[in-house]
């Protein structure tokens, strides 16, 4: 209840906001911040809880986006179906990556996930139906649920998706699965010898994390009315999805939420006020600063402060 009442209230508040008459740009920017809440929470399930650092975030996001595109182009599927489809296909990609953990650990796993980006990007570049290298322009369908504009609707949908992602991530943290993932992050051998089915848990984490990353990427074609490979497979997704949990505090569900809200908003601000190129620098600098002075992120600070003031 301590989680659900505020969480539901915030989500409803955000959805309600989309019906108000404030500046459209706020929703356009807010969508990106909320998308990062989804992506960072999803990344944290595998990277934070299980300690498997996934650099392949752009691949999962793009699989979500392109699945949505194909569903829309081929069947005229509505947004919710696009999101579910994106999550499903990305979840299957998660399953494949999960099987990599059978043999690859640590940095070797991370490098393999980078390869996934390039493999899938090459596939998309050579696939005429989804526009190849030039991309596809999309005519958005009618807005539903009584929203004024499509962007407002997407903002509300992303708010709900954030709630779903954070709830799943929080549930996993406090469940047996989270306990097992934590154990295998500390020592895979000792976890096995404590009865933890490490492979199964790693695969579960990969599938759930992958599905949520895909769901987060699925609304992109509709959001931009356009999709092309270079931005869909952009490595900055990987950097952001990793930087946000690290800055917020890894291994706790609230960490990526804090990191995404903070860094996402800051990036949007910098993009508008200063330069769209500078926002990547902001992520980099903050990441370095946090790794050096607060390796446990903002949550680590809070914990240390609580211990200190006791």
């Amino acid at each position, binding site marked *: 209840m301590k989680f659900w009442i505020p969480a539901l209230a915030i989500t409803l508040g955000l959805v309600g906001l989309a019906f108000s008459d404030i500046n459209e740009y706020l929703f356009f920017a807010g969508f990106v911040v909320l998308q990062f809440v989804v992506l960072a929470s999803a990344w944290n399930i595998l990277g934070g809880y299980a300690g498997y650092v996934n650099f392949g975030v752009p691949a999962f996001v793009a699989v979500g986006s392109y699945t949505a595109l194909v569903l829309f182009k081929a069947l005229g599927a509505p947004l919710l179906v696009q999101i579910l489809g994106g999550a499903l296909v990305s979840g299957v990609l998660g399953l494949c990556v999960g099987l990599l953990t059978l043999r690859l650990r640590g940095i070797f796993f991370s490098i393999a996930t980078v390869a996934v980006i390039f493999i899938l990007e090459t596939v998309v570049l050579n696939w005429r139906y989804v526009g190849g290298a030039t991309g596809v322009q999309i005519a958005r369908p009618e807005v539903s649920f009584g929203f004024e504009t499509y962007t407002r609707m997407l903002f509300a949908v992303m708010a709900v998706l954030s709630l779903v992602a954070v709830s799943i991530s929080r549930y996993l943290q406090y469940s047996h699965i989270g306990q097992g993932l934590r*154990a295998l992050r500390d020592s895979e*051998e000792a*976890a*096995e*010898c*404590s*009865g*933890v089915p490490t*492979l199964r848990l790693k695969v579960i984490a990969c599938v759930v994390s992958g599905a949520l990353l895909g769901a987060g990427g699925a609304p992109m074609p509709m959001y931009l009315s356009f999709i092309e490979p270079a931005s869909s497979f952009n490595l900055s997704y990987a950097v952001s999805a990793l930087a946000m949990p690290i800055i917020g505090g890894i291994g706790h569900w609230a960490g990526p939420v804090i990191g995404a809200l903070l860094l996402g908003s800051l990036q949007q601000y910098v993009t508008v006020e200063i330069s769209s190129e500078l926002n990547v620098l902001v992520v980099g600098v903050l990441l370095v600063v946090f790794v050096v002075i607060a390796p446990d992120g903002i949550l680590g600070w809070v914990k240390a402060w609580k211990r200190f003031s006791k």
Partner: protein
Amino acid sequence: METILEVSGLGKNFGGFTALSEVSLAVASGERLGLIGPNGSGKTTLINCISGALFNDAGSIRFNGQEVSRKSAHERTRLGIARSFQIPRPFGSMTVLENLMVPFAYVCGISGKRARSEAREILGHMGLAEKADTQSNQLSQVELRKMELARAMAARPKLLVSDEAMAGLAGAEVDEVLKILFELNAQGITIIMIEHIMQAVMSFSQRVVCLDAGSIIADGTPEVVVKNPQVQRAYLGH
């Protein structure tokens, strides 16, 4: 006496290197077995094959009459094979108590208050009661060794494999850990102890097996094995 563990014709290669060949060993229920041998003789490989950390290339491993050599490590833990590690592997981000909660949840299927009180009981037996809420990466070497044994015990094993649980410990600490192992054995747990401290091996083991270059070269009572000329040449260095 009833046989709890039966290893027969066990072989394990790493590339072209034969780590174990034709190792056969039967352990009786409730037995205290010492496993000795020079470094690189295959002791840890043997127990890695028994616990499931490695799969054997040849031969069979039967535990309680059941073939386990193709089962994964966590399945074997659930069947009752527990082990401690030569280099302690604590779940460093957890407290000592939380370390024990993992096998409780995943092997015994208990959690919450009941698991916590049982965990405290085990820690009490190990002399770790005051350390229950300490972060496990803050423990001293002897405390880590004890915690490894405590965590192994939380899985309620029938067979405990202790891989050099006394390595690097001082004299009095060796006796402490030895006392714990004797107590566990008195509760009916079969124990295989790998150890280089001969005094501990001699006082603990009912039977000693000596490995050299991946094969068993001696098997018998401690007194007989240490007098074996092959053992003396390969390991004891007389």
